[in-house]
Structures are given as structure tokens and as C-alpha cells.
């Protein structure tokens, strides 16, 4: 049995984890029913919402901890806060109780996920470093790779580099190469691979279908932002859209010849959505900041309430 402040600290960690779990469940429900309707909103709005959703479980966990530790920060907290979250045995923590088992499992899962993520990131970074070492410098900031697959991409975490394969470079016009070069430059300037990696870490806690949906949405927003970046420097939307379609057609033709095992169902629509976005009206809807704020506060309070709810539910089944 652990007593005193160490016990309080372990309880706070348990509250944090439970709050994070509550946040995940609530956000997953919001994402399932609300997110598909966000297509018409501006890129900035969609990007901000995605980052908010990705970080919400941590916000919810943090809110549950703050509500537990510092109730005096909130006006008239004695009237409403006790119904949401309250202490039971703050200075007593049993490692053999469900609290202890739950906390150990959470910390172990986080550790395993962190080690696996770091290992995977290192392996991917090494592969891109190897590609960079095997590439040849060419004009337009694109390093050329001696490969048939028609591809252009930016890779690398801290020092991203733009690549184009010879298979693509030899099949496109000067104008298309210029557009592709600008597009990849946008990803480098915005450090999109790094953002993508941070986002992947944040959404790693979500169930797989939600995580994949959010990651695909972020990827689309990044591509659309890069398209807009090109549009500001080369104001010819139909040429950009045509380049995108031509590259997609080249890639599809290549995939037909190769036994390529790609099957990203969301991304099958991504090119279509990017072209529609490029050619569509420039003004997109925005969402009220007050409304978003209210939803965040209510969702955070629900997550905090879920901590106490889970506590009571589990303690009908298990002893402390």
C-alpha cells in the first residue's frame, strides 16, 4: 500500500489516463458523426480542427487532473464540481487494486507504443537517408532517383528532401515539372513530414478506423495546402489540376504493369477532392470559435465525469 503524496501522484496519473480514455471515446463519437460534414470548411479551419481532435484526449486528461487538484480555480465549484469528479481515497493507493493494474497497463502500453514508434521512425528515416545518398541532384530542388515508378515525394523528418523518379521526370512537360517542384517545396517549407509524424503520435491512441480516417484527412489537408501554395506562385488552377491528374494517370498505368499491393480506399478519392478544391470556389465556410470552445469544454467535462463514472462502475466489480 502506498500512502501520502506518492499515492496522490499515482491517483493523478490514473485520473489522467482515465480522462484520456474518456476523451478518446467522446472524440471518436464526434468524429464518426460530425467530421464527414466538414468538407466544405476552409483548409485552416479543417487543419485546426484535426489538430484539436488529435490532442483532445490529452486536453481531456489534463482537464480531469486540474478539476481534481484545483477545484478552487473554478467559480462556485462546490455547487457543481462534486457531481462531476470527486476524491475517494486520495492519499491511499494500492498497486494490487484495479487502479494499480490499470495504471501499470496504461504505462506499459505507452512505453511499448513509444519504443515501437521510435524504432519505426528510425527505420524509415534510414531508408530515406539511403534514398538521398543514391539520388542525383537536378534542377528545381528535386533530387532524381533512377527508378521507373513515376513518383514525386518529400521524405525526411528534420531535413526533408524532395525526390522525383526518372520514370516521372521523363514523362512530364516542363510546366508539370515546375508545378511538381513548387508543390514539393511547399511540403519542405511547411515541414509536412514532421507534422505528419507528430500527428501520428497524437492519434496513436485512437481506435484504428478513427486513427486512419484522421490521418487521411490530415494528409489531404496538407496536400490541398501545398496545392494552394503552388496556386499563389503559379496562378493557373487548371494547369495544376491537369498536372495532378496526369501524374495520377501515369502512376495508375505503372501500377497496372506491376503487381503493386496498394489499397488505400480513402486516397482513391483524394486526387478527386484536390482537383475539385483547386477548381471550386475560393471561399469556404468557417466555424464559430465560440461554438468550438463550447463543444471542447462540454466534451472535457464529460471526459472528467467519465473518470468518476468508470471508478464507481469498476468498484462494483472489484475491490479497491
Amino acid at each position, binding site marked *: 500500500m502506498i500512502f501520502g503524496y506518492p499515492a496522490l501522484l499515482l491517483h493523478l496519473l490514473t485520473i489522467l489516463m482515465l480522462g484520456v480514455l474518456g476523451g478518446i471515446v467522446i472524440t471518436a463519437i464526434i468524429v464518426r458523426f460530425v467530421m464527414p460534414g466538414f468538407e466544405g470548411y476552409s483548409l485552416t479551419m479543417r487543419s485546426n480542427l484535426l489538430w484539436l481532435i488529435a490532442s483532445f484526449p490529452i486536453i481531456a486528461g489534463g482537464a480531469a487532473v486540474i478539476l481534481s487538484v484545483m477545484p478552487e480555480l473554478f467559480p462556485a465549484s462546490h455547487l457543481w464540481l462534486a457531481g462531476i469528479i470527486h476524491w475517494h481515497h486520495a492519499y491511499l493507493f494500492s498497486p494490487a487494486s484495479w487502479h494499480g493494474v490499470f495504471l501499470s497497463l496504461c504505462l506499459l502500453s505507452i512505453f511499448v507504443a513509444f519504443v515501437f514508434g521510435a524504432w519505426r521512425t528510425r*527505420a*524509415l*528515416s*534510414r*531508408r*530515406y537517408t539511403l*534514398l538521398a*545518398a*543514391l539520388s542525383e541532384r537536378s534542377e528545381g530542388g528535386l533530387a532524381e*532517383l*533512377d*527508378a*521507373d*515508378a*513515376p*513518383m*514525386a*515525394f*518529400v*521524405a*525526411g523528418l528534420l531535413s526533408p528532401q524532395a525526390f522525383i*523518379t526518372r520514370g516521372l521526370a521523363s514523362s512530364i512537360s516542363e510546366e508539370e515539372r515546375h508545378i511538381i517542384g513548387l508543390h*514539393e517545396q511547399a511540403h519542405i517549407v511547411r515541414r*509536412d*513530414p514532421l507534422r*505528419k*509524424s507528430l500527428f*501520428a503520435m497524437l492519434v496513436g491512441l485512437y481506435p484504428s478506423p478513427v486513427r*486512419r480516417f484522421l*490521418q*487521411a484527412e*490530415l*494528409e489531404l489537408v496538407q*496536400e490541398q495546402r*501545398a496545392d494552394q501554395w503552388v496556386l499563389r506562385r503559379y496562378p*493557373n*488552377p*487548371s494547369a495544376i*489540376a*491537369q498536372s*495532378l491528374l496526369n*501524374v*495520377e*494517370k501515369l*502512376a*495508375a498505368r505503372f*501500377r*497496372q504493369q506491376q503487381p*503493386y499491393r*496498394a*489499397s*488505400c*480506399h480513402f*486516397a*482513391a478519392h483524394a*486526387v*478527386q477532392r484536390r*482537383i*475539385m478544391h483547386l*477548381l471550386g470556389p475560393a471561399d469556404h465556410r468557417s466555424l464559430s470559435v465560440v461554438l468550438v470552445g463550447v463543444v471542447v469544454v462540454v466534451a472535457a467535462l464529460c471526459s472528467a465525469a467519465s473518470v468518476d463514472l468508470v471508478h464507481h462502475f469498476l468498484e462494483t466489480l472489484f475491490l479497491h
Partner: protein
Amino acid sequence: MQLGELEKQVLQYFWKGRTADAKSVHSHFEKRRGGTLNTIQSTLDRLYKKGLLRREKQGHAFHYQAAMDRQAFIGKLIEGIGEDYSADPGSTLIAAFSTFSEKLSDKQIEALEKLIEARREADAEQSDQ
């Protein structure tokens, strides 16, 4: 696949179409970067185990040569990136101009071509006025 600095240099050596045993490789690299015969032998062995070199025993020594040329190797790396992407697109560290996904249907391509053409015509009309 991961390759160390010496492994990369040894591969470049074999991509020039050479066939050589560990001693010849060592004498080539000794002048350029130093290192022992043992280091070269274990590097050659690692590259063989990774499937990047082929070897054949001639007398007491193994004679090595590249199992695939440079272009095939880069193609394999790129294929690996495509596979990573299709397995988990959000977790790769790349941002691609086009997708690695299944192709758009002919109907979708046709509709997009029409949309682009309509926009091009509208822009041309606007600039004429």
C-alpha cells in the same frame, strides 16, 4: 532495409560491374578509408545475407558480385516505400505529389478531365473580355 556507410561504399564498388574477393575489396578500400580485412569480410557477409551480393566459392575464397544493379535496388527501395504507404499511409514520413493508391476509375478521370476543360475555357473567356 538499412545500410551502413561502408556497406553503401562497397555496394557502389560492385555496381561498377566488378567481381572480387574480400582481399581485392580490402586493398581497394585500404587506400581510400583504411580498415581491416575482417571489417571488409563481415561487411561482404552482411551484404550477402541482405541479398544485395551474390557469392561463389573459388578455391578457398568467396568471390562476390552485385545481386542486383543500382536501378533495381532503388526500385526495390521505392517499392518498399509504396508498401509502407499502403499498409499505413498516415505513419510514413513522406508527403507525395500523387497517391500510391488504387487508380481512379475511367469514369472519374473523364469527369475530372471535363471539369478541368470547363475551367480552362471559362478562364480563357474571362481573359478575352
